[in-house]
């Protein structure tokens, strides 16, 4: 056994780091072991035996940005000894050292003489004591590897629907309805086994709707709603009408109404105790109609339950709110019990109960008597992202709304107070117009309201736009229906049959008509709730 001190480490500078090379001749010839004596803790016991160095070379080694000048190489010793020297200088373990000599690596068992080293030669060493990079135990999951439904979830919105031949009215209606999460959950609770009270076709349609919605959620590519389409035709044969061998263009409003009717029929029954009519609770609103006959000054009032409000478009109507008011006031001829003949009655309606989702239909199509055809009103009617229908409500309802509205105003006031730049723009106005950013903030708030459903959410009479069904084209029997739906993330997505694309909030309110661009036909608002 030969022990020698490291030639570059005189004891004075590093008293504890003396290396010993121990050569074992018997068992493992030619192999060196080195011990850091400091670690082993018997530094005092070992007598250092210095060896004669017959052939010493001086080289400099460059490592990273440092240069170790004048390192002596004992060419009678294998290069491993040299590496051990470098270990002490750099802290790089010999097995990690790569020493480059003229386009080659210095091998542990190389012969110095064949390398042709010269005195003063510069060598380069590569190597670090860094931890070796290990792959994380749990590798990342890549989108490309995910099953399709998860990819859809990542996309942030669901797939489009394939047009099966003039079925854009159906596709856009279903996309709008699908945007109501409560309806989806009601559907998923729906029992697959038919109960007696529902007729066969309604049941089938309800199941088909449920299937369609879940398929849409799973898929990345556009879905062909074939089964649903078959069932719909069966239930409502008018949708199966053919014209020149093709399916006819249909009215989306009809489809919408029929779908809601069917669903309200089939979803009402299962749990009669708590929620008698789920669909009605979601979409239905009660109107308080007051009939007044000017001739006889008779008055009568009745309540009526409807699924949507109508926005009548006349020459004075420029805004949704005006149209709604217009729609709630009307004249009708009726036999007057007091006069005993038909008389003109003025009908005024007020909203008596508010739905979670307020549907408004723009009455753009009407029957033109003179030309005997369905015509379309192209007039531009603006609609807001945030709708306040307080003044359309009945007295009773207004009273109920007072407190929640006050609270909402307080919260908003606080928010505005925080935002120095905020303007007092929308105050005192019946209908508030806010920019896209503001509306997304508020939608965030409405969703928090949803979460606190247990804590008795209250209606405020304020609604946020969530989906728009538009019609493009000059006449009622032609053109194209497209759905524009706001996602939970606050982004708007356009569902043009199989194509989906992201849209900006400001582009949505541009769908108000007045040209040949898509114009809103049915809009759906979601109530802004507040917990008291």
């Amino acid at each position: 056994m030969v022990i020698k001190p490291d030639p570059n480490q005189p004891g004075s500078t590093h008293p504890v780091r003396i290396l010993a090379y121990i050569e074992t001749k018997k068992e493992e010839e030619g192999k060196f072991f080195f011990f850091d004596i400091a670690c082993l803790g018997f530094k005092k016991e070992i007598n250092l035996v210095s060896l004669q160095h017959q052939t010493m070379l001086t080289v400099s080694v460059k490592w990273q940005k440092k240069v170790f000048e004048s390192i002596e190489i004992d060419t009678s010793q294998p290069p491993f000894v040299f590496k051990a020297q470098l270990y002490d200088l750099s802290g790089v373990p010999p097995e990690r050292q790569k020493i480059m000599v003229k386009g080659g690596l210095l091998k542990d068992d190389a012969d110095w003489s064949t390398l042709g080293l010269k005195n003063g030669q510069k060598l380069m060493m590569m190597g670090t004591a860094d931890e070796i990079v290990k792959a994380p135990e749990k590798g990342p999951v890549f989108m490309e590897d995910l099953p399709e439904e998860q990819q859809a979830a990542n996309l942030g919105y669901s797939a489009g629907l394939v047009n099966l031949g003039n079925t854009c009215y159906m596709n856009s209606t279903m996309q709008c309805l699908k945007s109501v999460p409560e309806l989806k959950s009601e559907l998923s609770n729906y029992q697959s086994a038919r109960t007696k009270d529902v007729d066969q076709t309604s049941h089938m349609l309800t199941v088909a709707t449920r299937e369609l919605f879940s398929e849409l959620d799973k898929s990345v590519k556009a879905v062909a709603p074939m089964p649903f389409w078959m069932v719909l035709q069966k239930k409502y044969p008018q949708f199966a009408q053919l014209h020149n061998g093709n399916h006819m263009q249909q009215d989306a409003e009809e489809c919408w109404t029929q779908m809601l009717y069917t669903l309200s029929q089939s979803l009402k029954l299962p749990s009669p105790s708590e929620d008698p009519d789920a669909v009605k609770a979601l979409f239905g609103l009660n109107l308080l109609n007051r009939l007044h006959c000017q001739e006889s000054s008779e008055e009568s009032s009745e309540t009526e339950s409807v699924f949507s409000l109508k926005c009548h478009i006349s020459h004075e109507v420029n805004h949704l709110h005006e149209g709604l008011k217009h729609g709630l006031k009307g004249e009708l001829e009726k036999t007057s019990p007091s006069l005993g003949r038909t008389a003109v009655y003025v009908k005024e309606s007020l909203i008596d109960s508010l739905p979670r989702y307020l549907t408004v239909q723009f009455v753009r199509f009407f029957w033109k008597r003179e030309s005997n055809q369905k015509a379309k009103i192209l007039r531009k009617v603006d609609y807001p992202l945030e709708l306040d229908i307080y003044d359309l409500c009945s007295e009773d309802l207004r009273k109920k709304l007072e407190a929640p509205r006050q609270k909402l105003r307080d919260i908003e006031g606080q928010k505005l107070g925080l935002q120095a730049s905020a303007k007092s723009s929308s105050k005192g106005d019946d209908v508030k117009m806010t920019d896209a950013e503001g509306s997304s903030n508020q939608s965030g708030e409405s969703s928090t309201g949803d979460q606190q459903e247990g804590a008795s959410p209250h209606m405020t009479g304020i609604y946020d736009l969530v989906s728009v069904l538009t019609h493009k084209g000059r006449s009622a029997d032609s053109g194209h229906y497209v759905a524009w739906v706001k996602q939970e993330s606050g982004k708007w997505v356009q569902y043009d049959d199989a194509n989906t694309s992201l849209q900006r909030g400001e582009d949505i309110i541009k769908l108000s008509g007045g040209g040949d661009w898509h114009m809103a036909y049915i809009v759906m608002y979601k109530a802004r709730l507040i917990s008291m």
Partner: protein
Amino acid sequence: MAPTPDPNSVGGSAKQDEATLKVPSKDPKKKDEKKDEDLSEEDLELKQNLELYVERVQDPNPDLQKAALESMRQEIRASTSSMTSVPKPLKFLRPHYGTLKAFHETMPNSDLKKYLSDILSVLALTMSAEGERESLSFRLIGTEGDIGSWGHEYVRNLAGEIAQEYTKRQSEEASIDDLMELVQQIVAFHMKHNAETEAVDLLMDVEDLDLLLEHVDKTNFKRTCNYLTSAAKYLPGPDDMLVLDISYMIYMKFEEYPNALQIALFLDNTQYVKQVFTSCTDLLKKKQFCYMIARHGITFDLDDEMVADDDDREALQDIVNNTKLSEGYLTLARDIEVMEAKTPEDIYKAHLLDGRASSGASADSARQNLAATFVNAFVNAGFGQDKLMTVPSDSTTGSSGNWLFKNKEHGKTSAAASLGMIQLWDVDSGLSQLDKYFHSNDNPIIAGALLGVGIVNCGIKNDCDPALALLGDYIDKEDSSVRIGAIMGLGISYAGSQNDQIRSKLSPILNDAKAPLDVIAFASLSLGMIYVGSCNEEVAQSIIFALMDRSEAELGDALTRFLPLGLGLLYLGKQESVEATAEVSKTFNEKIRKYCDMTLLSCAYAGTGNVLKVQDLLAQCGEHLEKGDIHQGPAVLGLAMVAMSEELGVDMEIRSLERMLQYGEQNIRRAVPLALGLLCISNPKVTVMDTLSRLSHDTDSEVAMAAIISLGLIGAGTNNARIAGMLRNLSSYYYKDANLLFCVRIAQGLVHMGKGLLTLSPFHSERFLLSPTALAGIVTLLHACLDMKPIILGKYHYVLYFLVLAMQPRMMLTVDENLKPLSVPVRVGQAVDVVGQAGRPKTITGFQTHSTPVLLAAGERAELATDKYIPLSPILEGFIILKENPDYREE
């Protein structure tokens, strides 16, 4: 209205002649007399005098004759010749030309006849019919005296006639000695009188440029050489080489070594380069030469003949080896304050895209992460720090390998190699950063580490040859991804070195029957790069055999295209030298034959501007192919490669590519955007930008992808806001198409390459020199882009790293005599072409004054705005050593 002299009137007595000859001269005189009314008195007098002389010349008395001739001569010479009008004496003598000519023929040989010949020669300037060359013929029989005394216009005319006469005599193989004597005189005259361009033109016409050497002097050699070098671009070979040779000699004669070196580099003549070193005695100047060689990117070893002192030689060799490039680049970066690392998100600027930006996906997309890897690598290239790969390992997010493992399989290769790109040119820290990946047990990571080593060493030479030492052992490993990593790394780090040791390692792979195709393809490419433009026979042989051994199926593979490309790179810019190999290529399987043919042709004539080859290639593109031949792609690229050498060619090529877009087949349309990208690389011309922007929405997604990548190429390293905006919009337009989005991301990375401090242009030194390795890197990428799906969009995306060969800082960094950075004011402006202009014209226009270091955009030139220092190179690009001006006085 010129009066035709009557040649038949000769004969009889002189008096009779006089009488008969007077008649024709009278007629015009009458007409003239009407005009004479307009003449001033002086002119009238001059006219009468001249008429008198003409008469006297024909006088039998020799003394009178002589006196008349003298006076006539006086008059002609005294007239101030202007370019716009015929001098008066000449005008008045016009009617008598015939008379004198006829008389001249009758004269016996004598001095007087010679005298008259001189005068007739001058008169012929205005009188002689086109193509008669009378001026010259009279000149040749006249006195051999000073021709300059007759004025510039006369000499110029004479020169033109000599050129015509020369071609005539050449075809008749007649003697030209008398002509050459005249040429001597004319050249001497021109050179003395600021008409260097005309002297050069004449000498080029008579093919005797050597004469120039005798006549250039200190005052005119610069203009002469300037004209010579720029004329060389338009000359057919081998004349261009000759012209450059001459200008090299002139520069050497006047010890204008930097220019001489430039030409030596252009000629790729190592002997000349050596001569520059041995002739120059100033060590500081030699340092500047080294910087120039380093920028050109060739391997060059100094010997003791060039630099005697060992220490000096080492210092100089260090400069040639580019070891200080990283330092200089970082100095620039610190000065411009762009050291802060940028993330891919900083480049994408998705917040500027409202609404359409993809919603925050919860899972990583491997494709998008790979794109981010490349963007990160390109943007932070050479800065040594970034926010993905070099974040310290003890940060809260976990170990530094994190980003690496956000890439999938082969993506990890590119991710590991990106570390090499970030540490570009800084071999020491680069190697230590890469070290940890060598010990990984994941093959793609090892491959990436190997490639990274190659990238770090790109353009940097080191005595220890670290790249060879580290990569050598991995060439013959089992795993082909590891092998490719090592092979490609060697190709990048030793490009242009012609290293025999590597050849002996790589050549066997080519002809190894067991080696997979991709390994062979990359080996061929690497050999092509290492031996770029060397015409090395042995390498060519190996590649040819490898090509012949390919099976039918392998020839159809997209990667096979790298074999002919490797072969082509061997002959990059070497023109005729390719012919033998091109002949051999005709025997290849027809599937690859034409592809090989086009590649060889385009590489061999790359950067030459050879019009004939452009026509050849155009003819190939004009064919309408029925089945899927792919050779038109390289032909279109070839058009750009050949034409890219000078501005005019580039403009013409852009126009003809536009035609091809309209009439070409699918495979041509796919290559056109790439060709445009090559023509305007790192030079975002608005017209090209618009064309590419249009094509980026093409219905053929291959065309769109090529156009998007090319948008990146033309904007590479410019931070061009317009292209950045276009790409941002494209990223939202294509947000659903993973492939196109990947291309958009890559292009975005390219535009912001090196945070705007780098250029991809293979041209440097005022667009005069073409770096062969840089061109090789770009051409390789473009060939890969001809078929994106299997290569860049497949698992060989790391071919994008071949661009590193062309990456150079677009800076001007002034250093003092100790090579420490020195800040001085400079004017930077649009370069003006001053070739052939008289005096000392302004070389830049619309300049701004900055202090160094500064960035130079395409087409920009810098000049010192102070007299305090003298730059050691006239071309202010890259590293410039400044010497204190000994004559400088403060204010």
